[in-house]
Structure formats: C-alpha cells, structure tokens
C-alpha cells in the first residue's frame, strides 16, 4: 500500500481534492480503463463522494471496491438531472461500456464510428462541472505492461444550446482518453477487447469472432483428457452455432 506509485496517486488525489474544494461544482473525470486509473478512482472515492460510470461486470474483477458506486450513464443522469448542483464527483470509464441504454449515440472519428454515451456532455452542459481527462501512459508489453496516469484539465465552457455538429465535437473531445487508447492499443489497456465492440461496423463481426474463439477453444478440449471442456463443446455446440447465425445488432444492445 505504501509503494512509490501509490504515493504518487495519493499526491494526485490530494491535489485534485484541494482543487475541487475550491470549485463549487464537483468534477467530471473521464478516464481510460488502466490499472493506474482504477487505482486513482479507488483513492479518490475514499477522499470524496464519487459516482462511477462503468461496467460493473468487469469492475467486479478489476476494482471491486468501485462496484457499489458504479452505475450506467442513463441511471446517473436520472439521479442528478433534477438537482440544482452535481451532488458528487463523477468518474467515467466510457471504454468499458458497449452501449447499455438509449443515451448512446454513434459519432464519427476519422473513418471510424464509435458508440458513446452522451451523458458526460449533458452533465457538462447542465452543471458546468470542471472536466479532467485522463491520459494513459504505458510501459512494457504483455505481462510486464504497466501504466501511469496523467490528468489534464479541459477548458470547457459548453453553451446550453449546441448544434448537432458542435455536440458531436464535444462528445469526441470528452471521449478522447478512450479514443487515444484505441488508436494505440496497448496490453495495459484493460478495456481493449470490450472497446472494440463499440466500433459500430465491427460489432457483429467481433461478437461472432469471439463466439468462434470460444467454440474453437471448447473444441480443442475434445483432445484433452477429462470431461471439461470437451463435454461442454458437445452440449453447447448447437446453441453456439444458432447464436452465430443470428444477427447481433449493436442497436439491440443500446
């Protein structure tokens, strides 16, 4: 607990908490899913009230202490939209969410289309919260991959009325931490596999490829001694093949 990296995280959290105390509105912090950023969110949540926008099904393993504070973008919006002030800091991990609620919207970045929740922009427009974007810094590869986190304050003065084009531009600015990781995917980016599902054109293909991978691995089990997972392949084969033939649309998961 007292390693140098934790000391740096503590210092960063202390500095942010001091800044937040000076600001009348708690901050909105958008982070990529890395070991360092999760550690940061855990420390921050001990120092001040925090809600996390993320995927509890992956956080249960990556950072279990955050699970209780984790919610979907739309649920968070419903909780706070009637309040005059943002009641707590919001830490958002947009790269963990494929698209769970109707707040998700497709946006083009270069030649790719991503699906992001618009709730972060809505929070910014309504509460004028100070925004911090996390920048993941990676070192090493594979099992030796390690990460650190840099926080950048975004000068954000979003007018209440935005054209669709301007809105999309803000959405892309806020989602930059995840988009940057996608441009240079690294082993230390924990949401790497999940994030690929957010790219619209890839959704069905990638889900089906993932299904093929699971099928192939179960099938490899047929050659190994013991009933599992070869037995599972025999039992699951029909269902997996049926899922593979079915259209799997991103919209269904929105």
């Amino acid at each position: 607990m007292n390693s140098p990296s934790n000391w740096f995280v503590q210092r960063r959290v202390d500095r942010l908490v001091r800044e937040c105390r000076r600001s009348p509105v708690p901050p909105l912090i958008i982070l990529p899913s890395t070991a360092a950023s999760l550690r940061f969110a855990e420390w921050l949540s001990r120092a001040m009230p925090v809600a996390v926008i993320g995927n509890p099904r992956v956080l249960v393993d990556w950072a279990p202490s955050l699970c209780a504070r984790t919610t979907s973008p739309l649920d968070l919006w419903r909780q706070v939209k009637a309040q005059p002030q943002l009641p707590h800091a919001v830490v958002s991990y947009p790269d963990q969410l494929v698209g769970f609620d109707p707040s998700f919207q497709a946006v083009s970045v270069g030649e790719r289309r991503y699906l992001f929740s618009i709730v972060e922009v809505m929070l910014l427009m309504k509460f004028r919260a100070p925004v911090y974007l996390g920048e993941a810094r990676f070192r090493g590869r594979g099992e030796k991959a390690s990460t650190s986190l840099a926080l950048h304050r975004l000068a954000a003065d979003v007018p209440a009325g935005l054209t669709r084009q301007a809105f999309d531009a803000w959405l892309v600015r806020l989602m930059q931490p995840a988009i940057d990781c996608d441009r240079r995917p690294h082993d230390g980016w924990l949401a790497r596999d999940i994030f690929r599902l957010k790219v619209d054109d890839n959704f069905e293909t990638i889900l089906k490829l993932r299904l093929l991978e699971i099928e192939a691995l179960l099938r490899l089990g047929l050659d190994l001694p013991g009933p599992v997972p070869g037995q599972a392949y025999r039992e699951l084969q029909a269902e997996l093949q049926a899922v593979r033939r079915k259209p799997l649309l991103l919209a269904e998961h929105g």
Partner: protein
Amino acid sequence: MRSSGSRWNAVGSALSGANYALTPKLVLAADRLRPWLGFAWPPVSGANPPADVLTNFTRYEATAFAMRLRSRQLQAHAFEVGAGELDDYVQAHVIADRERMRGWMNAGTGVIYACPHYGPFLLGALLVATLGSAASPSHVFYDPPESVPDNARFDALFQHFGDRLNVLHNEPRDLVRAMRALKNRECLSIMFDVVQRPADSMLVPFFDRLYPAMGGAAYLSLQSGAPIVPAYVVPDAARKARVVFGQPIEPGQFMHANRDKNVYDMTRALFADFQQQLIRAPWHWIYWANVVAATRLDPDALRDRATLMTEIGRRCHATPELLRQSPRLQAWIQSLPGGGMPADIALPSSPSRG
C-alpha cells in the same frame, strides 16, 4: 525481320534472367549499406510475420523483398503463357516431384492440391493444369472476382487452357462440381489460406493464435476420399519455381463419428503442415498480416486443461453481451470454479487486493 525479332527476344530473355539471378545478391548487398544510407525496403506485398516468428530470421525484410521480386517476375512471365505453350512452359519452369504426383493420381481417388498464396503460386496452378486433359480436366478453386476483383485476371488466363483446366469459384454450385470432379478421380487445386468472411469460418491453432480457416478442402476430401496434398511454390534458381509438397493428409485417418470434428481436425492438420513450411521459409507468404491480427492463444492451452479454461473464461467475461445471447454458455461458465473468472484478469496491484 523474324531473325531480328528473335534476337531481341533472346536479349530480353537474357536480361530478364540476369535480373532474376542478380536481384537477391543486389538486395542483400544494399541491405548491408542500409545502416549508413538510412533507407527502408519498400513493402512489395504483405506484412512481416509477428515478432515471435521473426526472431529466427536475420535480415528478414531484405530477403523477403528479394524473394517477392523474384516471385513477381515469375508470375508476370507465367501470365504470358499461351494455350499451346503450357506443357513446354511448365516443363521448363516448374520443378516438382512428378513421380509422386503420378502416384497420387493413380491411387484411385482424385487429389486435392492445397496451395496457399505463397511464392509464385500461379505456377503451381499451371502444373496442376498439365495433369488435365479434355477427357479428364484439372480444376482450380478460388474466390470469384465478385469477391476478389484481382481474381479476374486469373480467370482470363485460365480460360486459355479451357479444355484441360476448369475454373471453379467459391460458391455452392461450384462446390458440387468440385465434388463431382474428385469423385471422377480428377485433381483440384484449392487456395485454402484466405477467408473472405472470418465470422463464417472456423478457428484453428496457428503460430500461437486462433486463425480463421475454411473447411472446404477438408469437407471435399472427406466426402470424396481424395487426399489433401499441401503444395508450396517457391522461387528457385534460373527463373524456375519449385513445388514443395507437404505431408499428404488422408481422409481415412479422420474417422470420428462427428463429421464437424473430422473437418476441423483435417483443417487443423493442413494448417499445421503450412506452419512447418512457414517456419522453414516465411518470406513467400503474402498474408502474414492476418496472423498478426489473429487472436493470441496461450500454446499451453493445447496441452493443459486449466490454461484452456482460463482462455475460455477470459473471452467469456470480456464479452458479457455474448453470454446474454447464450444462456447455456453463461450457465456453464458460472458453474465453473470461481465463475470461470481467470485469475490473471485481476489486478494484483490494486489497493483492495493489497
């Protein structure tokens, strides 16, 4: 005029031969100067193999560049072959163990030559064409130009040999024709290393990855009894191509009650043979990018059940949307110790785990 023309042809041929012979030497000599001159070899076609394969090969890029220039030269030359020149051309430019080929042809079944996009593969197809006759043609099977526009030029070339070589495209009607041809003891050359729709393929272990493969060759072999003979074409000296045969894969060795398993196991055997060839000579394949893009597989998963379960658990938990689609898979994963959650996904350094 004719004598002058043939003289120029001879000069052109000599220059072309000199170019072919000198290319590797010049490229490798220039490669020695590369650190000082600071240039990079242009990509002729295809990507480099993944880093774990490259570790075994020094000066890979220069060698691949030279080899691919040679292959291109051989293929370009082969595109000029006319209908009446086929036998002479193949005799002069393709080195192959024809005795073994005759043995396979006389074994009472058809033969499936599995040819990847490796080296001057076109010359392999021309070799197969020479095995055909008007009464018993050979066949080449590949994707139609509607899927791969570049294949139109192969269609145009193979039309010259219409009575001896029949083009079959990767579509249901031609699959039936391929089956009929094999049952008539004819031979078929099939390009097996490219998948147009990975989501409709099967994934086989290949260079510690799960690589998308089609089961077409295996399916045809099992249905017809024809063996699959892997055939790899490499550029050789003196403007010739050499056909290297892999280990023939006999359908009789795959007699499991489950036909899908037989197709899978045969396809896996074919790719295992191809992997051996690529380990020996990786420079000639143009689809390394597909390997780099393929999903990694812990090689221990092929031997160790716990590792295999970890690989399955990792994928299931990274794709909860998939588990929602397959309740039985979800139930099965949850029934495993620890809910099938692989321990290595957890962050050992996270404060909550101390």
